[in-house]
C-alpha cells in the first residue's frame, strides 16, 4: 500500500509536464490570438498541405530504404559469433553518438558543388553533379541519421532466431530467398514494425536536416512548425495546429504498426 505513494511525485510531474503541455497545443490549435475558439488554424494548414505530403513522402522513402538496407545488415550481424556481434553493433552505434547536427553538416561538405564527392568525380573528368539542395539530399540525410534505429531493433529480434530452424529449412531444400521470406521475415515482424516506427517518426518531424541539405525549397513540416515559433513567421496558433496534425499522423502510424499497448486510450 505504502509503496504506491512513491509514484505520486512522478504522476504529478507527468500531469504538469506531459499532459498539460499537450493540452496547451490542442488549446492553441483551436484558438485565435485573442483566445476565441476557431477552426481557422486547421483550415489554414491547407496552405501547407504540400509540405505535409512531402514530409510523409520523404520519410516513407527513407523508411523503406532503411528497411531494405537494414535487413541484411541486421541479419549478418545476428549470425556472427557472439563476441563479434558486440563489435559490429558498436560499429553501427558509434556514429549515432555524434550529434546529428555535426553528422548532417559533414554531409554538406561532402555533397556540395565543390565538395569532396564532386572532386572525386572530377578526377575522372566527370560532373560536377547536383548532389545537394534537392529532395534526394534530404532523404539521404534522413537515412544516414536514422538507419541505426532500424538496424538495432531488427538485430535484437533476429538474434533470437534459432540457427537450427534455418538449418532445418536448408536441409528440407529451402533456397536462400525462401529462407528470408518464409522464416526470417515472419520471425522478425516485431523488429520490423519497431524499426519502421523509430525511423519514420523522427524523419517525418525533422527540421534541421531539410534546412541544411534541402536548400530552402524542400522545407518539411518540422521546418514550418519551427518557423511559427522561433523563426520567420511568428504564429504559435498555426504552429500548434501543425503540431496537432503531425501528432495525429504519428498516432496513425503507431496504430498501423501495432506498437501501442492495446488498452491504450488515444491522447
Amino acid at each position: 500500500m505504502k509503496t504506491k505513494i512513491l509514484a505520486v511525485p512522478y504522476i504529478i510531474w507527468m500531469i504538469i509536464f506531459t499532459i498539460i503541455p499537450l493540452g496547451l497545443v490542442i488549446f492553441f490549435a483551436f484558438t485565435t490570438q485573442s483566445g476565441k475558439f476557431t477552426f481557422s488554424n486547421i483550415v489554414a494548414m491547407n496552405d501547407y498541405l504540400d509540405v505535409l505530403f512531402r514530409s510523409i513522402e520523404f520519410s516513407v522513402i527513407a523508411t523503406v530504404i532503411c528497411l531494405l538496407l537494414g535487413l541484411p545488415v541486421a541479419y549478418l550481424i545476428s549470425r556472427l559469433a557472439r563476441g563479434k556481434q558486440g563489435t559490429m553493433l558498436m560499429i553501427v552505434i558509434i556514429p549515432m553518438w555524434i550529434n546529428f547536427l555535426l553528422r548532417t553538416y559533414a554531409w554538406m561538405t561532402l555533397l556540395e558543388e565543390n565538395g569532396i564527392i564532386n572532386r572525386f568525380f572530377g578526377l575522372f573528368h566527370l560532373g560536377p553533379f547536383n548532389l545537394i539542395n534537392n529532395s534526394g539530399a534530404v532523404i539521404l540525410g534522413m537515412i544516414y541519421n536514422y538507419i541505426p534505429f532500424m538496424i538495432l531493433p531488427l538485430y535484437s529480434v533476429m538474434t533470437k532466431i534459432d540457427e537450427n530452424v534455418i538449418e532445418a529449412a536448408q536441409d528440407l531444400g529451402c533456397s536462400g530467398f525462401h529462407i528470408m521470406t518464409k522464416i526470417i521475415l515472419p520471425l522478425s515482424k516485431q523488429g520490423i514494425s519497431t524499426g519502421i516506427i523509430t525511423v519514420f517518426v523522427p524523419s517525418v518531424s525533422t527540421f534541421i536536416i531539410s534546412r541544411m541539405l534541402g536548400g530552402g525549397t524542400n522545407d518539411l513540416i518540422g521546418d514550418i512548425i519551427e518557423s511559427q515559433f522561433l523563426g520567420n513567421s511568428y504564429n504559435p496558433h498555426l504552429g500548434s495546429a501543425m503540431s496537432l496534425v503531425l501528432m495525429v499522423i504519428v498516432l496513425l502510424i503507431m496504430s498501423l504498426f501495432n506498437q501501442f499497448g492495446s488498452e491504450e486510450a488515444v491522447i
Partner: protein
Amino acid sequence: MKKNFVIIITLILLLITFSGCSGNTNRTSSDTSSSNNVKSETYSNTVISEENITDNSQPLNSISSDDVNMDTILTKLDKSLLSDYDYSKLKNQNITLNVCNWGEYMAVNQDDYFDVNQEFEKLTGIKVNYKTFATNEELYSKLKSGGGDYDIVIPSDYMISKMIKEGLIQKLDFSNIPNFSYIDKKFVGLEYDPENEYSVPYTWGIVCIVYNKNMVKKEITGWCDLWDEANDNNILMFNNPRDAFGIALTYLGYSQNTEDKKELEEAASTLKQQKNLVQAYVMDEIFDKIGGESSAIAPYYAGDVQTMIDENPNLDFCIPKEGTNKFVDAACIPTAAKNKEAAEMYINFLNEIQVAYANCDYLCYSTPHTGVYSLFDDEIKTNPLRCPPDDYLNEKTEVFINLSDETNAYTQELWNQIKIEKSKSPWLVPAFLLISIALTFFLNIRRSRKKKQDIF
C-alpha cells in the same frame, strides 16, 4: 574472407577521403589570407561615381588619425581614448547583460581585434552574454515567445518601428548615452523612429550582389542577373519574404514598400519564375556558400560582401543598377530588459570611437559614427561598398518601412505559394485529420477486441 572484407572497407574509405585532399583541382579554394591591397583592385565599375561624398558634421571631441597609433588601435583597447564616462558605476553588482545581435556582427572572439565584450566586462564588471540571430523576423519571434530576456537587441529599421508599435522596446535615457552625439545627424530621427527616442544607430549599408568572377559567364550589372538563365542553378536567394520581395519589386521598378496587391502579385510571379534558377534559399549561409565557391551569385549585405571579397579574391561585387535596399541597424532595449542602465552603458561603450572603429573595421559595414568616419583614409571613403556615394543613396535606395499587418500577411501568403504548391479544397486537412483519428480508434479497438478473444 573476413580479413578481405575489412581491407576492402578501409580501402574504399581511404580512397574516397583522400581523393578530396589530393592536389588542387582547377577551382581554387578560398584562402584565409586577407590581403588589403585586393580591396582597391576589385571594385567593379558599375554605376558608382567615386566623388560626391559630403563631409559629415564634425563632432565636438573627435580623434584624428594623427593622435592614435593606428597599428594597435584594433588589437588593444587604449583606455586614454575613452570618453570620461563612469563605466565603473555598476561594478560588483553581479549584473549579466544579454545581448542579441546579428550573426558575426561585432568584433567578438577574433584574432586581430580586441574582444569588444571582454573589454566591456573588464571595464565595467558587467558580464556580457552574447547571442545571435539571422533575420529580423527571427528576433521578433524570440522577443515574442522567449519572454524578453534580452537587454539589448540590434534590429533593422522596419522591425524597429514594428517593435515600437507593439511596445516591445522601450525609450532610452540619452543622458546615459553621451556618445550619441557622435551619431551623424543624417541618421537621427529617421522614419522608423521619428523622434529618435528608442534607438541608437549601429551600422548601415545597402544590399548588393556578390558573385564569383570565375563562375559567372556574363558581366553582372544588377538584379536582372539573378533572373538570367546563364547563372542557372548557381543563384542563391534570400529565404525571407521581406528581403526576397524587396529585390523582386526593385527589379520590376516598383517601390519596396508597396502595399499594392497587384504589384506584390507581379513580384510573386517573378519570384516564381526565378525559382527554377535558384540553387537554394538561404540567409546567413550565403556567406559560407559563396565564400566556399559552391554558388556563384547572391544578394547580400555590403559590409559582409567586403569581408567575403577580402577573404576570397575570386569574388567581386556589383551595386545593382536598378537600385536597392538601404538598411540601418540600431541598438534598442526591449521593454522586458532587466538592466536598462547597464544596457545604456553598453550602447555608450559601443559608440566609443575606438570600439566603434574596431567594430567597423571588422564588419566593413558603413558607419553612422562621425568619429569613426573621420579616421577613415581615402581608400575607404571612396569604396562604394563601405561608403556608398550620396547620389546613388538618394536616387536609387529605399529604406524598408513597417508595412500594415494585412500586407505582411499577404506577402507571407504569396511567399508560401512560391515555395509551396497550394491545394484547392479547404477541407482536405480537416478531413484528413478526422479520417486519421477514426482509423486510429478503429485499429485500437479492433486490436483490444482481438486480445479479449484470444484470452477466452
